[in-house]
Each structure stands twice: as C-alpha cells, then as structure tokens.
C-alpha cells in the first residue's frame, strides 16, 4: 500500500505547524493532540517502538467526518517514502504539544511580567 498522500499530508502539516498556522488541541489522552479541518481531523501521538526499544514511534491518524479512523501511519511505515519521517514527525509532535498546551503563551506572559 502506498502512503504517498499521507507522506504529503505529514510534510504540509509539519510546515503549517512550524508557521503556527494550525490550531492543535489537547484530547482525552495525555500526549495525544488533534487538529481539525472542515471534514477531517488529524491526530498525532507517540508510542513505544517495537523496532528500537527505548525509542518512540510517532503516529499520525486521519479521522473522517463520522469520527472513524480511516488512516493510521507511523514514521516507520513511511520511512521508505520519507527518509526524514522520524525527524519531521517528532518535531511536529513537539510543536503540537507546545501549541495545544499553550506553552509559548505561558512563557511569553511570564517573561512580560518579569520584564515589568
């Protein structure tokens, strides 16, 4: 099965997350974040790797308008198509976490008050 379209989505999501153009939010699970579009949602999370113990796999899920998971891929699944998949998805995950938790807003607010 080809993951080319999923790989394209991962690259675009990564770029938009870096540019702070998409709104990641927390979910019912710690360490799982989601962003929604008009008819689909994307979720990102990490899980313990089966291939390299002690390391994490990064996973992306595509959820349709009925709340059903229609696609789930890990960085391992797409590394043949996207050699930097691990690096890209790890970076996206970290940025999504910061955005969803409001880390930057909190730090900016503290810095502002410390500067007063």
């Amino acid at each position, binding site marked *: 099965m080809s993951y080319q379209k999923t790989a394209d989505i991962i690259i675009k999501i990564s770029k938009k997350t870096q540019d702070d153009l998409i709104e990641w939010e927390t979910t*019912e*699970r710690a360490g799982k974040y989601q962003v929604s579009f008009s008819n689909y949602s994307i979720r990102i999370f990490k899980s313990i790797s089966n291939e390299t113990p002690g390391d994490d796999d990064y996973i992306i899920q595509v959820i349709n308008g*009925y*709340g059903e998971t229609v696609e789930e891929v890990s960085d391992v699944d797409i590394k043949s198509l996207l050699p930097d998949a691990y690096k890209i998805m790890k970076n996206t995950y970290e940025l999504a976490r910061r955005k969803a938790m409001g880390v930057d807003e909190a730090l900016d607010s503290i810095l502002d008050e410390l500067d007063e």
Partner: protein
Amino acid sequence: MTLIIKALRYILDLNVSMLSILIQENHIGDYSSIIALIITVIGFGITILQLTKTKKASEIATSAVNAIRDDLKKIDTLTSLSSVVTEMEEIKHLQREKNLLKLPEKYAKLRTSLITIKGFSSIFAEEDLKIIQGTITQLSASEEAIDIHFENTISSTLKVSKLNGSISNHIDKLNEVLIRIKLKIGENS
C-alpha cells in the same frame, strides 16, 4: 367642438346618412383609428408596468420567505446545538461520578446529533465546521477510550480529569459557534 355637437345631434336624431356623410367629409374614421392605436399602446404600456410591479412584489415576497426559512433553520440548529452542549455538561457530571456505563451510548448519541447538525453546512463558517468536526472526533475517541477501559480495566489509563478537560474545551468552542449563529439570525431580513 362644433363637429362633435353636430355628430351628437345626428346620433340623437338617428340620422345615419347625415352621420355617415359627416364622418366621411371630416376623415373621422382615420382619426379614430389613430386614437384607438394610441389608446391601445398606452393600455399595453400600463399592463407591462403593472406586470413589472407584480413581478417585483413577487420577488420581494420570495426573498422575505427565504430569509424567514433561513432564520428558522438557524433557530433549529441553535436549539439542537444547545441541547448537545447541555448533554456534554451532563457527561462531565457522569464522568466525575465514575458512572461510566451510560457513557458510550451518550457519546454515540451526541456524535450522531453533531453529524446531523453539521449537515446544515450553509449556516456555518469554515471555523465553525472545524470546531464541530473536532468535537465529533473527540466524542468518538472518548467513546472508544471508555470501551477499551471496560475491556481491560487493569491496564487502562483512562483519566476523568483528561476526559472532562477535553469536553470542557469543546463546550467552550461550541458556545462560540452558538453566539455566532445567534448573531446571524435576522441579518437577511
């Protein structure tokens, strides 16, 4: 004027031959044809004017009916979405009480309601659709999390605080959608 008085006198006296001579000598037939033509043209113009006015009135009426229909649709959506928000508050209460048995059914019901509400996409802005889609995804994932919890209680990592935190986040966003719909009611009338 004299011609009209003469003509009237011949008509009253029933003097048809004199009336006929009078009409022929003064070319009254030609004039009356022209006058009749002018009256016909004016009449036709008035008819067109009346039809245009009627069409405009009909268009205004149609537009008013469409605006009322749109408002009714918005009010209906507002009511349905408000019910969803109320039920989400109830879910938080059940989760706090760890009354989990009823939850999967409630999650599924709310998800179905939101899918139906989302069907009225003409009412919503893109931002609203994203919020509703996000809530559908969240409800579906929460339902699955509760089901997994029932299947395997020992290794379950289900946390009520996370479930409720997520529900609260979506309630806040749905309330923003409700306000936006309220502001749209009556804007087309």
